[in-house]
């Protein structure tokens, strides 16, 4: 006789934990099964060299949804809040962005940025409520769906004639054109470009990169923070919250398959052969792994299988971790600046050029980087006096021509180090240990198909009503008792908790209706 639960959540990523905590809070007997030995999924802190720890995948917090924090009474301890973004220049004439303020650029750019920031945050505020609810169903309209859609239309109309037109004009276009129209300073344009394309298989000239930029602003208007102890502190807090509400979390328990009985989810079987029963299985895994390997296409229908099969989710970002025996010297930076977020993207064309080779399965010879020194404000991450560098390096396509061999990984690491050395000449000699996670490594370590941290490209064809795919955008899969709660479902990736919260709310409200 296998143990029976009200709900089984596959994967203890941040969304899985949010969902579990909310289900447990509603009185459900919840079991969470996590393959890794620690909770958190792609939002974890782990050691990468003796004495050095780092947030291994996601490394900055900017999208955690206030509604999630409020619903769960979550308390996060921050090492740094409202971090500045420093767009690095080799000559030390950096550009600094913080809120609606930008320093190091001409007056007209500074003014223009204020207007840009105001408009973008206003649009993000418009979108945000819709991130925090299940998307309306476009087919067989119910009153609720019509109200939701009507409200969305009304919200857009209420922006006023000018802003409404701007919203409609901008929502599908690329950020490159908009930046070119507004700004002079190349560093500013580079820094904004990078915000629009981080973690995607898109360049600033790709369509709908305004949308990805807006998506980033949904939560805290793009204000970046770093939790004390790295990302694990957020997910550990979520896990505590779930446990406090009565959920059972088992780590080191990979799920082999979701058990399907008579055409409905009935439980899970682990790698070790243990089975757990539940009429409600919620998968925090990405939609492809969920359907293609955990459920198996033979338990779902052909049209749906094909749509899931075709989800675009090939990661294009690598993660670089360096152990340093001291902070490097960087022209034009004070010591305190090491606590900020730095980006290497000299101009908008540089970012687009970095993307070009990725289209053809090659990594960027001149990559863009988002760099942080998390140990600067959080001494727990490195031995005294030593430091950790954590960087996202783009572009590193999942499907690299010739594959991600050790030689390819070494070469890309060298490229990233050389790029860093252009800004911090003494950095290479301070490196005592290196780790580079390619999308293939990310796929392997975090069980994300394609190593794509959004669990599916965040583009208009995989957004809102059609995320992850048409006919399954309301978290319920076309298989009774099976739900998705991860980044592959609406609204998407980033440590936001929105998908997990929405999924839990859908599950609970459906149950109430039944």
């Amino acid at each position, binding site marked *: 006789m296998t143990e029976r639960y009200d709900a089984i959540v596959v994967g203890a990523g941040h969304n899985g934990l949010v969902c579990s905590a909310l289900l447990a809070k509603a009185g459900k007997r919840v079991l969470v099964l996590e393959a890794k030995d620690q909770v958190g999924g792609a939002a974890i802190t782990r050691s990468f060299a003796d004495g050095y720890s780092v947030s291994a995948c996601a490394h900055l917090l900017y999208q955690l949804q206030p509604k999630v924090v409020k619903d769960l009474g979550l308390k996060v301890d921050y090492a740094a809040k409202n971090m500045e973004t420093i767009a690095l220049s080799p000559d030390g004439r950096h550009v600094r962005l913080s809120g609606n303020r930008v320093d190091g650029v001409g007056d007209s750019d500074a003014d223009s940025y204020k207007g840009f920031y105001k408009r973008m945050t206003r649009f993000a505020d418009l979108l945000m409520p819709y991130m925090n609810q299940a998307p309306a169903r476009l087919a067989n309209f119910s009153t609720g769906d019509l109200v939701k859609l009507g409200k969305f239309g009304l919200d857009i109309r209420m922006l006023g004639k000018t802003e409404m037109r701007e919203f409609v004009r901008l929502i599908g276009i690329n950020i490159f054109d908009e930046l070119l129209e507004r700004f002079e300073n190349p560093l500013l344009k580079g820094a904004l470009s990078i915000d629009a394309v981080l973690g995607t298989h898109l360049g600033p000239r790709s369509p709908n990169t305004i949308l990805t930029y807006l998506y980033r602003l949904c939560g805290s208007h793009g204000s970046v923070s770093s939790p004390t102890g790295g990302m694990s502190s957020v997910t550990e807090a979520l896990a505590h919250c779930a446990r406090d509400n009565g959920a059972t979390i088992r780590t080191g328990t990979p799920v082999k398959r979701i058990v*399907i*009985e*008579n*055409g409905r989810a009935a439980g899970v079987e682990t790698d070790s052969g243990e089975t757990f029963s539940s009429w409600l299985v919620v998968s925090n895994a990405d939609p492809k792994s969920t359907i*293609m390997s955990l459920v*198996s*296409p*033979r*338990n*779902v*229908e*052909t*049209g*749906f*299988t*094909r749509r899931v*099969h075709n989800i675009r989710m090939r990661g294009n970002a690598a993660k670089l971790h360096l152990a340093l025996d001291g902070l490097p010297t960087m022209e034009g930076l004070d010591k305190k600046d090491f606590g900020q977020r730095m980006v290497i993207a000299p101009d908008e064309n540089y970012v687009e050029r970095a993307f070009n080779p990725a289209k053809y399965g090659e990594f960027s010879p001149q990559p863009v980087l988002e760099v942080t020194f998390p140990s600067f404000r959080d001494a727990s991450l490195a031995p005294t006096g030593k430091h950790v560098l954590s960087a996202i390096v783009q572009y590193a396509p999942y499907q690299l021509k010739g594959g991600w061999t050790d030689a390819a990984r070494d070469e890309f690491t060298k490229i990233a180090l050389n790029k860093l050395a252009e800004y911090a000449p003494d950095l290479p000699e301070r490196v005592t240990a290196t780790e580079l996670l390619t999308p293939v490594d990310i796929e392997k370590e975090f069980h994300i198909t394609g190593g794509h941290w959004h669990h599916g490209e965040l583009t208009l064809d995989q957004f809102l009503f059609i995320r992850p795919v048409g*006919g399954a955008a309301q978290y319920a899969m*076309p298989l009774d008792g099976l739900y998705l709660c991860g980044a592959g479902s609406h609204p998407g990736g980033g440590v936001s908790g929105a998908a997990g919260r929405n999924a839990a709310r859908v599950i609970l409200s459906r149950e109430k209706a039944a």
Partner: protein
Amino acid sequence: MSIQEVQQDRIKSPFYPRQAELDKLNQWHEWKGYSSADAFYDSELEYFAIRNSTAVFDLTPMTKYRITGPDALDYLDRLVTRDMRKIKPGRVAYAVWCDDEGQVIDDGTIFHLKEGEYRLCSQERHMEWFIAATIGFDVTISLETADIAGLAVQGPTSFSVLNALGLDGLENLNFFGLMHFDFEGSELMVSRTGYTGDLGYELWIGASKAEALWDALFEAGRLYGIKAIGTIALEQARIEAAYLAAYADFLPCQETVRTGRSRSPFELGLGWLVDFKKPNFNGRRALAEEKRRGSTWRLVKLDIEGNKPANHSYIFAKKYGRYRQVGFVTSAAWSPICKQNLALGTVRMPHGAVGDTLWVEIYYQREMHWSRMMASAEVVDKPFWDPERRRVTPPGVY
């Protein structure tokens, strides 16, 4: 663009040289790229060959897929609505397949050739859908339309003809069964299937042996009234047998643009092919929902008064002396053998229950002038033509 650039030659079936010798009318049409004869000498006489002796129809243009691999059975079982586990080697299944919305893509026959090896035949082409359905299955789909020549040999004397051809043991072949024979060193597959509603067989052989088979068959059938037939005669017979035709009685759902123009198996009278005991198949969820909620349409077999075929007619229901339009005729024919005026049609539920009287508005032309009449039409249950000889084993020797 020159004519050379746009023209595509009609494909000639391997039986074409033989058919051309018999052809008096030069009346051909296109069927999936092939030339297919409307009739060879007289469509009515050809029709009577089906019902009174033996008719031979060239099936080669029928789209044929070979389905092999360890998961072939699981694959088909999810693809079609009926339970394929019940179809043992040596058996043939009539089946429909649906999309996720439970709407019919097409119907066809699936031949379980050998353990785990199948052939699927349909009027239309479906490679794209069949390939999509392979995701997650270890199965190979290959198109063998051109490799396999097919002949329908149908009519009361068809068994006698094939017996004379020397197919020993054919008398044991049950309805919807298949057997393999040797024909001049090649494998000849014979199935007791057809599209005429009569005693009949379908012969399948490698294309290179097609002419030899034709010659042997016509030689064996000389004394049994064997005749080559075209599509007009076949169409007449299939309406009598109440078989559905794609693009007439239903539209493959992937070809429809407007909502409500496709049909579910229930709406085509094929509910008997839907097996909800299977935990999963394409369209299951939607069909279960339709079963709960009720269907929108119903396919009806109509026995109409008079002798004027009701082609393209509206179907009406009469209530309190007023006619209300409830559907339309999709196929119609005067049946010489039944002496009945027949039609297949589609009507809105709840109209068209067996025994209901409906009305069709028939337009006909006499010496240039058009007339119309309201004819009463009774909804019948069984196919119009379904003789016992069709199923009996061993088959009768006529």
